[in-house]
């Protein structure tokens, strides 16, 4: 069977689709707040003179300037010698984390893609966009530290395509470089404590980022009725009810509560939180991620 491009989940296919999705976006420039502390060169202007390629200002040549540094074209128009200073540019590193738990493999109807598919696609698209903008992208675990270049994207796609074990994956806060940025994509339906730990730890380290909750429409509508046994995707959890329709309101309350909690947490730690449904366009979620990373 030949996998159609839209549902191809092989590393190569995933990357191809991610490239497609990221193509319309301008190179994403993540804002580098703590540029002084990181010394890696990148394309983020620091709005001060330093090493870089873009023009920053002319200043009068001083005694320590070598003759090569003098901008002769500018100096020829005056009696004084001038030196051209460049803007100090630096790259940001962004760590991605995509929930690889079994619960992400859920799709309520065959027409919709599983949540994991959408989450990986978004993550990789973001990676493509960031790479194109000159950022360094890596994974928020120890498997793939942030790097630049196309090769990194291939490795990223490779690792993202692997399924984890257990219902819900947990991010590792220790893997984040200080003052970098992080993007967490999950359904956040599992235990909330690891996420809390992740966010508080990263806040301590000066890491900021975005939380994107990817949900299936059925998880938001709970369109079930009658006598039902609900099982988690791995079958580890199970809940039986005689009248599923009766649970709907309470379930939705709990879901809203979970979101509130995540949202409060994100606000307290300087992160961004948003929810995305697999029935919606992936581009809107990518735009939101773009905007979230751009924000100071």
């Amino acid at each position, binding site marked *: 069977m030949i996998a159609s491009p839209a549902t191809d989940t092989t590393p190569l296919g995933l990357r191809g689709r991610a490239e497609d999705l990221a193509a319309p976006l301008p190179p994403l420039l993540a804002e580098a707040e703590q540029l002084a502390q990181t010394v890696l060169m990148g394309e983020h202007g620091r709005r001060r003179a330093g090493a870089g390629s873009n023009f920053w200002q002319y200043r009068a040549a001083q005694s320590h300037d070598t003759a090569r540094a003098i901008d002769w074209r500018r100096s020829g128009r005056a009696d004084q010698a001038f030196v051209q200073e460049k803007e100090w540019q630096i790259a940001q590193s962004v760590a991605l984390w995509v929930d690889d738990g079994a*619960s*992400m493999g*859920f799709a309520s109807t065959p027409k919709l893609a599983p*949540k994991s598919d959408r989450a990986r696609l978004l993550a990789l698209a973001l990676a493509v966009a960031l790479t194109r903008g000159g950022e360094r992208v890596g994974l928020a675990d120890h498997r793939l530290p942030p790097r630049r270049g196309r090769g990194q994207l291939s490795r990223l796609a490779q690792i993202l395509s692997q399924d984890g074990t257990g*219902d819900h994956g947990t991010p590792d806060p220790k893997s984040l470089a200080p003052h970098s940025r992080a993007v967490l994509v999950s*359904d956040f*339906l*599992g*235990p909330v404590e690891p996420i809390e730990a992740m966010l508080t730890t990263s806040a301590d380290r000066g890491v900021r980022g975005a939380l994107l909750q990817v949900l*299936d429409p*059925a*998880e938001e509508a*709970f*369109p*079930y*009725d*009658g*006598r*039902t*046994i*609900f*099982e*988690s*995707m791995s079958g580890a*959890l*199970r*809940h*039986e*009810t*005689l*009248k*599923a*329709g*009766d*649970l709907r309101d*309470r*379930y939705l309350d*709990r*879901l809203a509560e*979970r979101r509130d909690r995540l949202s409060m947490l994100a606000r307290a730690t300087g992160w961004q939180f948003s929810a995305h449904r697999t029935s919606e366009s992936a581009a809107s979620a990518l735009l939101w991620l773009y905007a979230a990373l751009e924000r100071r």
Partner: protein
Amino acid sequence: MWSLGPVGFLSPWLLAGLVLLPVLWLILRAVPPAPLRRRFPGVALLLGLDDRESQSDRTPWWLLLLRILAVAAAILGFAGPVLNPAERGAPGAGPLLILADGTWADARDWPVRVARIEALLGEAHRANRPAAVVTLTDPPEETRFDPADAVLTTLPGLTPHPWEPDAEALADWAATLEGRFETVWLSDGLARDSRAALLDALESHGAVRVVQTPRRILALRPPVLDGTDIALEAVRTPIGGAAQATVAAHGRDPAGIERQLASATLDFAPGEAVAQVALALPPELRNRVTRFEVEGARSAAAVALTDDALRRREVGLVESRETREAAELMSPLHYLRVALEPQAELISGDLPVLIPANPDVIVLADAGTLPPTEAEALQAWVESGGLLLRFAGPRLAASDAGREGDDPLMPVRLRAGGRSVGGTMSWGEPKTIAPFETDSPFFGLAIPGDVTVRAQIVAQPGPDLAARVIAQLSDGTPLVTRKPLGDGQVVLVHVTANAEWSSLPLSGLFVSMLERLAISARTNTDTATDLTGTSWQAVEIMDAEGRLTETDTRASVAGEALVAGDLGPDLPPGLYEGEAGRFARNVTRADTTLAPARWPARIAVEGLGRAAERPLGGLLLALAVALMAVDALASLAVGGRLRARTALLLLALMLPPVPTAQAQEPPMDAQAEAFAQAATESVVLGHILSGDAQVDEVAQQGLEGLGRALWQRTSVEPATPMAVDPETDELSFFPLLYWPITGTTPIPSGAAYDRLNAYLRGGGMIVFDTRDAGIAGLGTTTPEGRRLQTIARPLDVPPLSPVPEDHVLTRTFYLLQDFPGRHQGRAVWVEAAPEEEPTPGMPFRNLNDNVTPVVIGGNDWASAWAMNPVGMPLYPVGRGMAGERQREMATRFGVNLVMHVLTGNYKSDQVHVPALLERLGQ
């Protein structure tokens, strides 16, 4: 077979399965619907949520009931229930008498009746019973009971008759019956007075069973002439809801071929026994109708023959040459006119004008010698079958006509001068009229005592005078003489047609005599006395099915019997011919009513066909399957497997479609206003909806194409054409309405006609296009042509003529001489020009000071005009370059048409420009 009421069961032991139902109930009740396993990532959020109301884990009672019902229906269905199971009654004994009414009402399903009689005879044969078959319309002298198989062989000779049983004959026949026998009476279903007596007589001999099916019986009353319309009336039984029947008028076409000439629809209102319809036919067509027939009825009562009562004869009245300044009452034609007007079509004029019109009768009042050419023409006309009626008068008396020898146009030789009796200068009393001889056509007419004759012209005695006199005065002098001439005849009344010489024209006798002379049509109410003394010969008789057969071997019938007598073997319905014309004796009369036969309660009435056995098994099984389908749905719903939307969809599929409520229409005013704005923003051409969507589309495209041509070639820049419905839309905004006519174009209502007439009077133009290439000629041979006639009749249309060569339509923009559309060449009709001789030297007459209100043609112009939005023609016209030329001509005609409407006679007036300039120069 075991039966329960009207339902029997083929395998009743299966019903024992019903006992299992309570057990099934218990089992089903104990087994709840299985839970559904569902993968759901959000289950972590669900943990700890309890069911608030614990739903019973037992099957709900209604679902149980549904299933039990389904199983019960299945059990019942398999048990083979049958409605009205055929019973095998004990055969009767003794002779069997089978009666059939045998009237016209039986004719339609006579084969079914014969089949039933056959079945009865077959049963009798098996039971070894003697039998007899009798039709009541033709009771035998004596009734013999023969072996049933022998009677069976006589069945093919059994026919219904187009009359009803005669009560007396029935009583006589009943008296001849002897012994005990069983009677089966196949009734025709109509109430009749003779039934009760016969039933009593039959019951005295044994049991009586009646076989009768309720069915619709229609009878057409004789058509009556009402003004110029033919009023048709039909009665029916039983009186039910609304019903329709089509009446067709048959007659010979000009080629002598029998065909349907017209048709009308009778609408029975619910609860009404009588339906009426007025059929408007042109006189020529009306005179051709020989019979009206309800289509598909096949009985003598559904056929109404027509006779002279429907014919309106054309009578030519010859105006006297010199215009006398006499009082109107002195005019010799006044009394004739008054007497004939209600019943005949009158034409007046000179002989040279009248003879080519070929009327039935020409009346010459007080005319002397005729010029030789006229006399020859008149003689030829009489010899070919005309009736020349002459009246005497002073001028005839003074002339030499018929003096010298036998004048062919004078029945007798006349003596010079006249004769005056009872005047101031003469002896004797005014003469009265002698009773008519038996061989006179007037025989039987009552002579009023006050009819006197004061003057007359006198016939020369001769050998053949006595044979030619058909009415005479009390002294034996002739009053009316007649002689045959060729196929026609010449009649001379020896007094004047006015009251100058006698008081005859003042009396009713005058009218009756004219009627007897077959000059005027008979009045519709014939009474026996009117026809007393006449004798009539059947020329066509009708059988029970309404078929006509020609006959010339039947004994003649007296007039009074013909009118008043009951139909019977001696007087079958049909067409009778007498001296004064033709008389149709129909099965029905103007007061015929129908009622269903009622039988006493003690008589068993069976249907003609037995109530058919009707197996119900299939129905019940279908019900069981349907219940199971509902059960499947309901189970899904209970088990939570049914999504709400799917359920609604399925429910919608199962429910019968409900007509959606009509969308609220915007208020009429706003709509009319929007229409008016759209129609007046610019010049807008309109086409009237023809009732055929495709034709309307072509008309719309045609007017769009014409608009495009106008836009390109002229200063007229029309907007998009609009479709107009005269029923609802205001018409006065449109300079021109194009009206394609199809065979089914709806007839506008009264209000629409008012609107159309106002439009025509207000200077509008309607272009009628029958789209049939005009092959209809005068418009009687295509459905479109007939439709156009029907539609145009109430319209205020002036006299029409083909477009004359100098009509302004030929030069309003282009110079044209023919007006092709998709078809080429036939005449296009416009308002006729007033009579005006062309002025020598002027190319055109000074004509039509206004726009012709209608243009009638059949060239399908819209198809030739039609263009698509790019400007390419849409429909083929002709072939090759010639076709393109024809299309161009059609477009030019369209341009001319619009210019004619918009500029009126402007181009006509331009003819006068040189003269006006010349006058200005002076």
